[in-house]
């Protein structure tokens, strides 16, 4: 369960204040899957980072129960000069409590999930967007969290990867919740219970995804 109360967040860019959210409140109960909709730059990724605990709001409070994944996205989280194997090993070491055999198991899982062949041992910065998506998404699927925060990873990649990730998501969905950002309406196939539209520092909540998409399209087209 995640309960967010009146959080505000703003950035200072070259001395100018730009507001991302103003007094945003919402609640996500256990067993709910949420699709986040909104224009580029409307604060979807920032919201995920705040929920993941790696960024802090200016004011307001967040109550969380259960484990929450890191914000799984194409940007951040991976060191460009290191290979996928080294990056994955690093994260596994942190989340596996120093258990070596478990670390090796996770690395093997990600390697098999990503299917990028010898690129798995090449520097991460040489990867294409699709390959990055495969590795970052694979890494998040290697661990069990109560809530997953997923940021547009599923939108990248080819048909093969999308089918694979959908399968993995459906399997995880039995025990975990998801908060998914997506532009390609991937969530439509993935039956979300709720949809949030982020617009002008506010959040609008919808219980029906299809309705939300209709409104979203009307708003921005």
């Amino acid at each position, binding site marked *: 369960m995640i309960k967010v109360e009146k959080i505000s967040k703003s*950035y200072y860019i070259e001395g100018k204040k730009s507001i991302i959210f103003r007094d945003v409140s919402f609640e996500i109960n256990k067993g709910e899957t949420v699709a986040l909709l909104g224009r580029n730059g409307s604060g979807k990724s920032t919201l995920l980072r705040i929920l*993941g*605990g*790696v*960024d*802090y709001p200016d004011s307001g409070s967040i109550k969380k129960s259960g484990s929450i994944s*890191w*914000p799984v996205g194409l940007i*951040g*989280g*991976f*060191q*460009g*000069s*290191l290979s996928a194997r*080294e990056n994955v*090993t*690093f*994260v596994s*070491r*942190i*989340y596996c*409590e*120093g258990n070596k055999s478990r670390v090796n198991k996770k690395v093997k899982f990600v390697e098999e999930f990503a299917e990028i062949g010898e690129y798995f041992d090449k520097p991460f910065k040489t990867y294409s967007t699709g390959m990055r998506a495969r590795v970052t998404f694979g890494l998040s699927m290697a661990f069990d969290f109560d809530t997953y925060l997923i940021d547009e990873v599923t939108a990248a990649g080819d048909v093969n990867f999308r089918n694979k990730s959908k399968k993995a998501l459906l399997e995880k969905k039995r025990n975990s919740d998801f908060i998914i950002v997506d532009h390609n309406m991937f969530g439509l196939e993935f039956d979300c219970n709720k949809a949030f539209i982020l617009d002008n520092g506010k959040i609008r909540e919808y219980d029906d995804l299809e309705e939300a998409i209709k409104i979203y399209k009307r708003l921005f087209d």
Partner: protein
Amino acid sequence: MIENKKNKTILNKFTNLKTWDLKWLISDHKLKAIKTNLNIQKNVIKALIYRELKTRISKVRFGVFGLFIQPLGVITVFLFIFSFLRGIRNDIDTALFLTVGVIFFTLFYEIAIRSLNSMQANEALFFYKPVKPIDTVIARTIVETCLYSIVLIIITAGIFFLKEIWTLDQVFIVTSSYLTLSLFSFNFGLLLMVAGHKYPIIKQIMPLLNRPLWFTSGIFFSINQIPPGIRGFFSWNPILQSIELARNGFTENYIIDPSIISYRYLIWISLFSTCISYWIYTRNEKFLLTR
């Protein structure tokens, strides 16, 4: 019989005292939380050390040997200059004299000055909640301290072997001044990391201060070669203190003036900076992570 029982109850009291004592100080679940937090931090630091070692050793072109090139280069250049201009020292072997200076300063530089940019350099790591900025500095301190202690041991062994000398009078002084300098560097690095993030202009000023620091840290001179009037001013520098102490530890022929160079000062400034830097860091941890 009765006395035996009495003894037992007293004994029980004593054995229970331990757990009772802790409970009185801190509640059980709090203690548990601290323990798990420490365990998490330990794992994070371990993972960071592996990672740091990997980038540190593979980034330099010649791998582990790359570590030796920079200090050896500086030592050779100064040996060359000294042999022409100043003559050879008679209290301590000149090469050893330079080795201590160069490696101690490099240790400080690699830990403290490089922490200035560590928030930017490690941005990708802070995506994972268990990783805190202080962990990256701790990991770097451990890695650099170990690497440069190996470099120091190998170069000194090389000098001893080539020149057929053996001057290692007080191993304890050499080791402890090295470790105390590493603690001081850690504190300084932690402070620089916070300061650099808060006031980006420090990132531009620090490289300017770097050269003067190099020239005043006693890398290629001893404090006795400085005019007495300004010795006191130079002696505030903990890097110079540790370098002079270590030289004295290598050979007692190398005389230091206890009123200017003292281990007590080095310890005190390290402990003092520990308190200050930790206090400033904990106050700013959230700020460091907020974008």
